């Protein structure tokens, strides 16, 4: 049987292999070299690859991502760490107006293939400015790809895919997953960006999730099974592009859909997915699609308030019950 690996370690391993295979891969960010990153993901890379490839940068997210765009255009493959997704606001111009549009604006003759790693999500009681899930912003920008794995093996494979990708990729790591273990990645199970995965097969409804809430979706499916409801759980893994074929095929079988994310509900990724299913799978649906997401407000700090704020298995079960009733 395969051994286990932690989520953060799996990303570290992918980075190490990418760096060993290609000198063009560099890692930059705040406190990522000697300190190994706020969540330890880049630990050990400095010793292995040296200070020119694993670089602590001045505290300027705009400079880090702007410089990554420049380095990418010069032929490097920068992997940038933004310490918390909340700070990515400061790098938005470089991402949205530069990296995302480079290929298009240069008539296909230039590109900015960088990877931006950043942790999102709550559960650590980190308050309104260190807990947000802002992935919908990126999925809404033409030219950017966005992935959000839920297992160590997927994180490993998607990081490899992101580094190899010819376009800029936003690689989102849910903070509550760093400590989680899972089966170590197998080389033959490579994951392409844009590929969903069925975590559990079922016949009565489809629960679609990505990132940490996949665990809640599985828990909910387990509970629902004991009530005689057979839920299929799909991990989207990539948001842009997302695997519409897998979702439509599942809905064609189950006729019911619950989409779950930790990001706030309004104008979130679930809105796009539900709209798409309504457009292209309307006649397969036996019930209105359901969304389970955080309420439309900033994440609160206090642990008991945050527990209410974050979507959980119970909320998924309720939505599933509404859907099948």
């Amino acid at each position, binding site marked *: 049987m395969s051994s286990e690996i932690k989520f953060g370690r799996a990303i570290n391993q992918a980075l190490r292999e990418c760096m060993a295979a290609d000198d063009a891969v560099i890692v930059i960010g705040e406190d990522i070299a000697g300190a190994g990153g706020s969540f330890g993901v880049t630990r050990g890379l400095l010793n292995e690859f040296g200070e020119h490839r694993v670089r602590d940068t001045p505290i300027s*997210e705009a400079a880090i991502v702007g410089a990554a765009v420049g380095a990418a255009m010069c032929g490097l493959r920068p992997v940038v760490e933004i310490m918390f997704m909340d700070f990515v606001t400061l790098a938005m111009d470089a991402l949205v107006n530069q990296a995302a549009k480079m290929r298009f604006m240069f008539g296909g003759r230039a590109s900015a293939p960088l990877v931006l790693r950043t942790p999102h999500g709550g559960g650590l009681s980190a308050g309104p400015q260190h807990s947000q899930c802002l992935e919908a912003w990126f999925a809404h920008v033409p030219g950017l790809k966005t992935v959000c794995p839920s297992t160590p093996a997927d994180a490993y494979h998607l990081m490899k895919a992101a580094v190899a990708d010819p376009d800029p990729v936003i690689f989102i790591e849910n903070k509550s997953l760093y400590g989680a273990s899972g089966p170590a990645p197998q080389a033959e199970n490579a994951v392409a960006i844009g590929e969903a995965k069925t975590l559990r097969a079922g016949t009565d409804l489809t629960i679609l999730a990505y990132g940490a809430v996949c665990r809640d979706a599985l828990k909910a499916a387990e509970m629902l099974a004991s009530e005689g409801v057979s839920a299929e759980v799909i991990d989207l893994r990539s948001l842009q592009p997302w695997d519409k074929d897998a979702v439509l095929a599942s809905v064609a079988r189950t006729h019911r859909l619950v989409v779950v994310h930790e990001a706030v509900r309004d104008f979130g990724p679930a809105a796009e997915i539900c709209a798409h299913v309504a457009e292209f799978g309307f006649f397969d649906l036996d019930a209105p699609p359901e969304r389970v997401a955080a*309420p439309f407000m900033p994440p609160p700090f206090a642990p008991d308030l945050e527990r209410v704020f974050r979507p959980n298995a119970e909320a998924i079960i309720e939505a599933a019950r509404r859907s099948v009733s």
Partner: protein
Amino acid sequence: MTLVTGTAFHVPAPGRRPGDTPDFSKIEVPRAGETRKPAVDAPAGEVTDLAYGLVRVLDHNHQAVGPWDPQLSDQELINGLKTMVLTREFDDRMLKMQRTKRLSFYMKSLGEEAVAVAAAAALNDDDMLFPSYRQQGALIARGKDLGEMMCHCISNARDNLKGRQLPIHYASAEHNWFSVSGNLCTQFPQAVGWALASSYKRSNRIASSWIGEGSSAEGDFHAAMTLASVYKAPVVLNLVNNQWAISMFQGLSGGESATFAAKAIGYGVPGLRVDGNDFLAVYAATRWAADRARRKIGPTLLEIYTYRGEAHSTSDDPSRYRPKDEWRSWPLGDPIERLKNHLIGHGAWSADEHETWRAQCEERVATTWKESIGHGTLEEGPHAPTHTMFEDVYAEQPWHLRRQRQDLGV
């Protein structure tokens, strides 16, 4: 492509690493009193030397010397000393509570007490402060109730921020203390904007803000400096160079090739380097800058030169990146010891009085902690009622949020 040999590019590195003996021999410490004091209305272009000086008042014999001596009364100095001691005791108690998990997160200001306390003393109480997370001393100096600070840190029923903010991110309108932001440096342009609005209202209230040297790499620092310079905003901008930004030494933030104060020169703003562990120097420099601001002469950047005595926060382990106990060798000493020795030196204070006061502060924070947890603990509550967290997203709760609240059964 022609290839060249040699190293790729320069990567700054601190001279000292974990396990090394602390060594600050490369740090030049000018004699106290050596740096000149210009007239308060001196044009920025005529004070550029101050960006490479170091405003110091207390000499190695603990005497106040030179043109920057603010000539404070003994009582004023004793008040400052007492507030610094209280701040340190408060920090110690809170760290202990964090270690025993009664608090989830904390940030100490060890060694930087004068930075905040002396500035608060030199500013008017109605001047608006835009702090970072390490100026708790200024809030304490302004008389904030310690119990309220603790209640905020544990998000209990008495937390004025209703369980919404990280610990130590105090907000206190009554104390003209702007909410601490989790995103670095945002307070700098806000302070400039506030100061300009205050001028517009013909008020003589000025603004003051603090960032760390690490944060000066953010675009907001440069934006704020430009804005302040263009409109000659009545603002005192403090850049606290405590040598470390989490694990990154100040050279990685731009301190290797020039002083941080020197950044001001390019903006046409006076930049002064100040001994941040010298209460009198911080007071005098702040006063000089505040007078300039109040007299509509313009903004000032103060590089407050100090050392971060503790870990960055309770989430950080400095033994990974710097020698242990380096702070003890800091050539500019301990701000509390220096002011204490100064006062003892001319008979206004004694070691006994000092220890008595310290013990009183220790007891006071311990008692206040007990009272505070009477209003609820982080683990058990009571916290702000759950329904309150849906309030204040907008002035009026929108229909969709109301619906989502109801769906959550709240």
